[in-house]
């Protein structure tokens, strides 16, 4: 096991998959000469050349469509969005083309490709640059959506995404790129659609994904000081969602808090709560609670941004409430 950054883990995944399959190429803004806006593609131009590491104009809709066309006819594109905020311009190709092509063609045209880039808020980037899109994107049949929270998952999920025959969206975290963690040596694949228990406890379940995994673990550490031991279930893939893992943790702890980065309406928490009420109704000792971003665009001011974001304190408060400890 080597301890590497989330950024390097993604870089390794891209490099290894490009080495093993000439059909895989990387395309996006600043991926080549600039070495990636967040340096995820560092060194790839030098190793694979301009044929396979392609800088584009600022034309998201266009190059997303280029990826779809290339994928329909035999290549395996990895399309990088500088951030998912800019992917909104390309959603027509993601949703109307990539997601539906197999179905509309009666199974004739698969679209084996990856759309990836940083998702969610960083620090004080304001309303247009601080958005977590997983609950939007998981709405769409035909897509798979993964949100790695650790370096090992970043590498393993991206490699699986590239090998998958469907369009897979990989939502990374800008704030995660510098985080470090152990990544298994050699071939490391994480299957799509499989959650992982990142911490084990018996009093309550925190169900989460992406960057919020770290927040949940922080909350778990603090709760442990009060003798409260929680399960932290990292969904990893939000579509398809690992319902069996959700059921298993809730049947164990009988209480659940769903923590997500984005807004609450039509959110991941609503979806998970539906799974729980449907499958674990008799196991519940308390209503399912949710922690999420305030229902407002992200403000710039430091104090307002802090108030808007979900954090460990808000998660702990929710855990204490479902345990009836909030007196």
């Amino acid at each position, binding site marked *: 096991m080597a301890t590497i950054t989330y950024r390097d883990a993604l870089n390794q995944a891209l490099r290894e998959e490009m080495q093993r399959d000439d059909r895989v190429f990387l395309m996006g803004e600043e991926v080549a000469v600039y070495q990636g806006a967040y340096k995820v593609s560092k060194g790839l131009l030098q190793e694979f050349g301009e044929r396979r590491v392609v800088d584009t104009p600022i034309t998201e809709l266009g190059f997303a469509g280029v990826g779809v066309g290339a994928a329909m006819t035999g290549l395996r594109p990895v399309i990088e969005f500088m951030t998912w905020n800019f992917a909104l311009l390309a959603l027509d190709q993601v949703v109307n083309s990539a997601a539906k092509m197999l179905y509309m063609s009666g199974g004739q045209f698969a679209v084996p490709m990856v759309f990836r880039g940083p998702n969610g808020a960083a620090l004080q980037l304001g309303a247009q640059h601080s958005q977590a899109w997983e609950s939007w994107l998981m709405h769409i049949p035909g897509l798979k959506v993964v949100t790695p929270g650790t370096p090992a998952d970043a590498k393993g999920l991206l490699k699986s995404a590239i090998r998958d025959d469907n369009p897979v969206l990989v939502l990374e975290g800008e704030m995660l790129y510098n985080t470090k963690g152990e990544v298994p040596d050699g071939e490391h694949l994480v299957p799509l659609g499989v959650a992982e228990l990142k911490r084990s406890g018996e009093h309550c379940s925190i169900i989460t994904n992406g960057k919020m995994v770290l927040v949940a673990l922080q909350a778990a550490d603090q709760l442990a000081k009060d003798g409260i031991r929680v399960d932290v279930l990292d969904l990893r893939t939000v579509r398809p969602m690992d319902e069996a893992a959700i059921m298993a943790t809730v049947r164990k702890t009988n209480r659940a808090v769903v923590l997500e980065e984005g807004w609450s309406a039509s959110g991941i928490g609503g979806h998970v709560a539906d799974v729980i009420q449907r499958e674990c109704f008799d196991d519940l000792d308390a209503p399912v609670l949710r922690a999420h971003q*305030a229902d407002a665009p992200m403000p710039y001011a*430091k*104090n*307002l941004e802090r108030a808007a974001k979900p954090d460990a304190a808000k998660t702990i408060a929710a855990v204490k409430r479902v345990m009836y400890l909030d007196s």
Partner: protein
Amino acid sequence: MTNIRPTSTSTPPSGTVAARPSPAPVNAAPSMPAAPPASDTRELHRELLRMMLLQRRFEERCAEAYALGKIGGFSHLYIGQEATGTGAISVLRPDDYVITTYRDHAQAIARGITPRSVMAELFGKAAGCSHGKGGSMHLFSREHNFLGGHGIVGANIPIATGVAFGIKYRGGDQVCLCFFGEAAVNNGAFHEALNMAGLWKLPVIYVIENNRYGMGTALERASAVNDIAERARAYDMHRAVVDGQDVLAVRRVVGEAVQRARTERLPTLIESRTYRFMGHSMSDAVAGTYRSRAELDEQLKRDPIALLRAYMHERNEISESEVAELDAAVRAECEDAWQFADQSPEPELGALMQNVTVEGDGGPASGDGASSADNSNGAGGAPPAAEPSS
């Protein structure tokens, strides 16, 4: 195709040191006499110099504040490009509209938003021009018809077209001035917006600030056509190329376009050839990866402020000591803005959930001026500009 006339009247940057601002008719407002008295010209030049110096010193302080963590997020400086915003905005009337990108600090100041309220916004304070909610990339001022810094490349171009549509719809004679970078012209929004403006003959002036790079990508690595102004042909639109380091040339060319928009309701696409002296944003190195130090050094010789100064010296319009006085005055103004921003309070926490939607009776929709406070709820939910949200 008969009405396509390039209106270029000045030379694009040649990379030479000697190119200096062209002596020009300095006032483009249609009602002004063609040749104002020499004293007026001198006053105008001094004001343009002061304005550019103010922006320069202001942004030098921004870089300092960013390093100290007083400004957060992204911060994109305009240093080196001041002549374009200053010259272009200087020909507008107060009731005209300006819309721009995330590189907006200096243009906000050129439009008359006070350094205090811009700095307070950058510091995330309630007294900021967007009440602390926008930040560096999203400066707004209803009072100044400054319709924002926009963070998504290309997004402000159709919005500008819509503003011009609204002007024509209401039968007004205002114009909309829209700034964006040369990299934005490869985005679909640019083409869609210009086609509509050409088709519907809207009073809008699109100013492409061609600083040669979109982040780390040089123009010729991103665009099939390197003569950007040529793209206007596709939309049956007037076009012009101007030396963006020459504030007087910018004034003249934009002035002509403004007059055309005001009197004939026709759009113009202007390519202003300029250069950014700093990195793309605070996290980008000034030179090294995608542009050489030598290239930068060559461009630094065409500093728009130095060019105007030299021109004024030559005409005996200003002395060295007067320049020093101007500089001291704008430095003091920037220091005052810093102190003001530093000492003003953060927004109250209640502001977080305010302005998400318009609450209560929105009132009648705006008649024609975004500057009138009494209908502020009708068009966007912003509070009157002078009143910080609490």
